[in-house]
């Protein structure tokens, strides 16, 4: 355990979530808890990663946590034990959808207006976020004029206009070059640490990138029987990287224990 670090309240409680689509069992009793990360003297949100191979049901689970789909069984609850309907959890989808007929600034202002902010508050928050995300000079641009990385930043900023405890990022590292990957990783940590109770959940199959930014990893996968996958994914592993001393440190990716865990996870991935 890293000195001065501990865990606090449960901020997200996913219990026995099951989902069947067209008679195919997709999720089978998915259960995990995300707990508040506490670091003495520092505001620390948490970054958690939901890992799993392609097609295992990660995005389905993301949609349930985001309140977009209802599970067939089980519950998803927040910090106070409350349900999380659509609109309470921020989601940045893989293709970073933004309203293409609105400019960057207008997309952010709309999020403020939907979230019930006054016009003045919405304007102030928009300008603040444009500055934070280095997009001031792109305020008048349409999404069609932005690069993939810029779109991603605006999509994240839009979800933060109205303060939210949860932000889900679907495959945020997909198609990024090493430099962009580093920028996105840094951005994810910054967003998480904006508030003590912030939780950024990354849904990805990129093990190395997820390990580099996360405090906790949850592995979603299917069991195997006689060399065949048993239908219905569940959490097959939880890895506390803070506990293992593999979080919040520079140059972590070169450490032998980081590399060893990465290899272990890759091996596990192939069986899921």
């Amino acid at each position, binding site marked *: 355990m890293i000195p001065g670090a501990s865990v606090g309240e449960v901020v997200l409680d996913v219990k026995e979530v099951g989902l069947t689509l067209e008679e195919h069992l997709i999720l089978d009793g998915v259960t995990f808890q995300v707990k508040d990360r506490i670091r003495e003297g520092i505001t620390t949100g948490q970054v958690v990663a939901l890992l799993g191979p392609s097609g295992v049901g990660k995005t389905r689970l993301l*949609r349930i946590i*985001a*309140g*977009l789909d209802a599970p067939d069984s089980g519950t998803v609850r927040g910090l106070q034990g409350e349900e999380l309907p*659509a*609109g*309470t*959890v*921020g*989601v940045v*989808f893989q*293709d970073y*959808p*933004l*309203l*293409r*007929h609105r400019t960057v600034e207008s997309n952010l202002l*709309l*999020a403020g207006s*939907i*979230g019930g902010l006054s016009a003045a508050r919405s304007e102030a928050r928009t300008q603040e976020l444009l500055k934070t995300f280095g997009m001031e000079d792109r305020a008048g641009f*349409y*999404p*069609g*004029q932005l690069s993939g990385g810029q779109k991603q930043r605006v999509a994240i900023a*839009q*979800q933060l206009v*109205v303060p939210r405890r949860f932000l889900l990022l679907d495959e945020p590292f997909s198609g990024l070059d090493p430099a962009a990957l580093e920028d996105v990783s840094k951005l994810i940590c910054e967003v998480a640490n904006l508030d003590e109770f912030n939780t950024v959940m990354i849904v990805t199959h990129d093990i190395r990138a997820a390990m580099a930014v996360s405090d906790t990893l949850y592995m979603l996968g299917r069991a195997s029987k006689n060399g065949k996958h048993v239908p219905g994914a569940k959490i097959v592993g939880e890895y506390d990287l803070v506990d293992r001393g593999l979080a919040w440190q520079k140059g972590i990716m070169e450490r032998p224990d980081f590399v060893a865990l990465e290899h272990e996870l890759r091996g596990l991935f192939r069986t899921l």
Partner: protein
Amino acid sequence: MATKLARRRSKAAAFGVFNPNHVVGGRVAGLIVAFWTAIALLLWIASPWKTLPTPPEVIHALHDLWWNDGLGPELFTTLKLIFHATLITTVLALGLAYLTVVPAMRPLVQAASKLRFLGITGLVFPLTLLTGGGYALKVALLTFGMASFFVTSMAETVLEIPRSEFDHMRVLGASELLIVWEVVVRGTLDRALEVLRQNVAIGWSMITMVEGISRAEGGIGALILNENKHFRLEDVYALLLVILLVGLGIDALVGLLRAVLCPHARLGKVRR
């Protein structure tokens, strides 16, 4: 050396216009249009067909039609008719297309779309009984001709909106009505104007036939049929030229409207 390079480049550009998928600049595109216009004019001048009046004959006929035969007021009558029908078509077709978001209304919209297979000729009688003939009949025929195609295209456009665009608004906390406004109505406005552009062209191409059904109110269609009847070929070709040029003008006007209202629309276009 520099001159040699410039000469080689200009030679490559000249031959490039014959290469598939070659990108040309605005100036070259203009030259290509000028070239084909000149070819068309030459073919017209050198035409061996006796039934095709020469350009000076057509220009002379146009002068006569304008100053002596009241082409101006007739053109105004026709423009009023097409504008009236387009207005009703737009309201009706867009209203129906947007209603596809309501499951209970989908069969109605699909039925309206299928009416395009009916054709206009058979509808003259029932629509005459319904409208009492005259101007109202012409508006009804044009509206029917345009609206069934307009509904088909726009309903398809609405149907093709990716689910992620709706979900994106849901995770921001937007109401379903606001989602319809932002994603369905405003989000497809550029496409709606493009479909409008095509349907105005359909309506404009029907104008001669529709105005011929009831000639009492006049119009350029009635005028061309009268000239046809008396075999005044110069007048007929002059009127055809007017129909073509006014049609192109209307097309450019709707295009301009689209460019002004939807500046984002051109951003997704790639010149080939």
